């Protein structure tokens, strides 16, 4: 077991966990942040995407020890009690979420994309979300949600 300390959604957490435990399991089981989903367990589907120090990572591939000192953002950190984050609102309105299981990862991938390219081209959107699989939508409405989010004032769509 190892003591690991990191910040999640603005809150500092210190845990005693097996060092090679998947960060995905630490988030879901130790911290009960179940918005981060497991789809494949091998870094293909992107359902477990989170932001770690601003980078988009598959939390199923990150050992807990690797998160030492990191700043982590999960889907639970996007909205506040009363209001959705603009990206979430756009996914909701544009039909970007169907079954919802890829949605948390997709939202964080979108946030990451818009931080990098505030006005992304269609090609940048397609490439930027290519690590996140969705079996329901055919991606068209997800792309539309991303374009809508980008069209809002940049201050609204970037990291809160």
């Amino acid at each position: 077991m190892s003591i690991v300390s990191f910040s999640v959604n603005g809150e500092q957490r210190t845990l005693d966990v097996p060092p090679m435990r998947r960060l995905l399991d630490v988030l879901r089981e130790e911290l009960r942040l179940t918005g981060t989903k497991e789809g494949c367990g091998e870094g293909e589907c992107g359902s477990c995407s989170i932001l770690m120090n601003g980078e988009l990572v598959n939390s199923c591939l990150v050992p807990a020890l690797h998160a030492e000192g990191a700043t982590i953002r999960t889907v639970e950190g996007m909205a506040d009690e009363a209001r959705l984050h603009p990206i979430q609102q756009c996914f909701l309105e544009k039909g970007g979420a169907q079954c919802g299981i890829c949605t948390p990862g997709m939202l964080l991938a979108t946030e990451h994309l818009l931080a990098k390219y505030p006005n992304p081209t269609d090609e940048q959107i397609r490439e930027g979300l290519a690590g996140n699989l969705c079996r329901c939508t055919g991606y068209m409405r997800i792309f539309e949600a991303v374009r809508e989010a980008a069209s809002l004032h940049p201050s609204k769509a970037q990291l809160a």
Partner: protein
Amino acid sequence: MLGEISRMAAPASNQIVGTPVLRKEGVAKVRGSAQYVDDLELPEMLHGATVRSTIARGRIRSITFDPSIAWGEYIIVTSRDIPGKNTIVHLFEDHLCLADDLVSHVAEPILLLAHADKAKLPAAAAAVKIEYEPLPAVFTIEESESRQTAIWGEDNTFKTYLMEKGDPDSVWATADYIVEGEYTTGAQEQLYIENNGCIAEWSDTEGVTVYGSMQCPYYLHHALMLAFDLPADKCRVVQTETGGAFGGKEDFPSVIGTHAALLAKKSGRPVKIIYDRGEDMASTTKRHPSRTRHRTAVSKDGKLLGAEIEFAIDGGAYCTLSPVVLSRGTIHAGGCYFWPNLRVRSKAMATNIPPHGAFRGFGAPQSLFALERHMDKIARVVGISGEELRRRNFLHPGNHTATGQLVADPIDMNAMLDRVLSASDFHAKQARFVETNRRSPIQRGVGLASFMHGAGFTGSGERRLNSLVKLEADAQGRIVLLVSSAEFGQGTNTILCQVAAQALQIPYEQVLIAQPDTHRVPNSGPTVASRTAMIVGKLVQTACENLLATLRESGLLEEQHSAAQFCHACIAHREQHGSLTGEARYQSPGDIFWDDDKYKGDAYPAFAWAHYVAEVAVDTRTYQATCEGFWAIQEVGKVLHPTLAAGQIEGGVAQGIGYALYERCEYKDGHLRNNQMTNYIMPTGADLPPIHVLFEEIPSIHGAFGAKGIGELPMDGPAPAILNAIYSAIGIDFDAIPLLPEDIFARMMRQSSGGSEDLKPEEAGPYYSRSAPQDEGLEVPA
């Protein structure tokens, strides 16, 4: 600032059906707070695992437990722990819950384990040593139909159908051309992103409760009653938020749900079983592989005179839903054309592959792939375009389908085709690509497929289901829908609430829908077969009318009412009578008849109609075919929700593109070798073209506010449209899907001219004109 973008949240007028209201459970989904089964933890919960067969067929000789494991810590369940029948009931009772003697496929469940520590399960499962006496196994339709090895019943056959119209034997003598072809399709994984999972609880007094990811709570309910020998009221099934299904959670949850329940009973504690991706892909159902043979008589002016179609599907090791899949595939085998004479023989064969099951389209994508490829070949034999051949043979209002069903809707297939050809710039592209293909290693083409898809259960299915829908008013005067129809992304919650709100003339927000729980909601049938919007929606509409009548008869509501008046009337009725409910039970429309024995009559209450156009590019250096543009026009009755409806079409088209060009199940000795997302490739956002969706709306009398089914339709058209486009690009006929670069490579290497094919039977492969011997030309291209 968020207020600015929530402008779409509330529909302004009293028109709710047809508007893009927000998805009912959408906020929870985008917040990440929606509770899927793996997000639930119950006190004292154990985790379950399944010990599975490692061979395709054989007898279990012995089961030994490696002494290196502390077995006393584990709950162990075998078939001897099943209180009732050792079966997972679907249509028959052949499917074992846990194998006890004979195993019939790789990954067949034999034994179940549970432990409080999930991490202690994989090593324990591996430490259960099972010895087998191997038996010969069967892996293909051909091996199964040869009957050299008997693996199921007397003849390895789950089901056969014979569908006949006119006198198909009479057409061959007078035909100008006879065109034959053989077409095959592979297995396809549903690949919902949430794997199968369930949590079960046991109580000696209350019986068994299962929570899980599923489409059909009452299917699992029925399976539990049989396996546990319990009455209906001692079995309870609750659907949790479901992360995609596509048919893959129609029949399979009966297996995993019963397993979790057996462990819960033995341990006396809640037990959760969640498959990981590898186990889910290796052991759960897939789309049935198929083989279709066509022999078609055509006149020189391109009229279809008659045909013989032989349709065969690989059902896998147990019957599961194969007869029903076969039925839909059989009825759709003749497609959207007028056949004066037609005979379709079909069969579902047993193999020692894990059972195949429901997947969006349910047999129709298989037989329609064959037909729509075959239509393009017939056109070339006749010497007209595929478009023209289709136009000369479309079903029109007043015609009868292959089952003798009158086409009653005022459908105009020619006008729809005009619209999609224009939207896709089809003819101009065809001409342009002939030019550009001369100068480029990237060869482009456009292809077309026309088809229809029946909505609702086939034949007498809806009558047998006898679905029931209920509504009740809550204490605030809101209406709660009680249906067993499940939401798994397709929009059930939203559209049923829209229908109720419209019927009751109250705001969408004032209608709620209950979580499907067999202790609370009646059996409104399974969430399958493109039946929810049409059949269940109509029942919701009728139940609302009944509820309004109750309020009016009791003098609490006028003919015209405001939302507030309705709300007050509901509350007043509850105060006077204790409750306010409404219900509606399915009644077969008087004008729909189906004869199961003769396989004739009205196969479906309604059909949706469609033309799909694919534009492809084949890179002749990498042999990769890519779909670069897609246009889908469909007539689906009234579109209840434009965003959700388009989302259904786009998602289905994406799965269809995957079916055609990406997704292959590689089996070796009955093992799925690529049971990972790493090597089973589904399309990413970067792989898909823009998908353009066009609707025609002809309200149907059979559906809620005129809606027809929509969910399965988009799975039917992409594969044939894409392979037709590939022919247009490189002049090679491919008759098998999936079609991956290695397949294109192998075939192009065989071509002496490096691409173009003519119609000489010896070169053209699986089709020929009447001058050729009849049993040649059935070879499938490698």
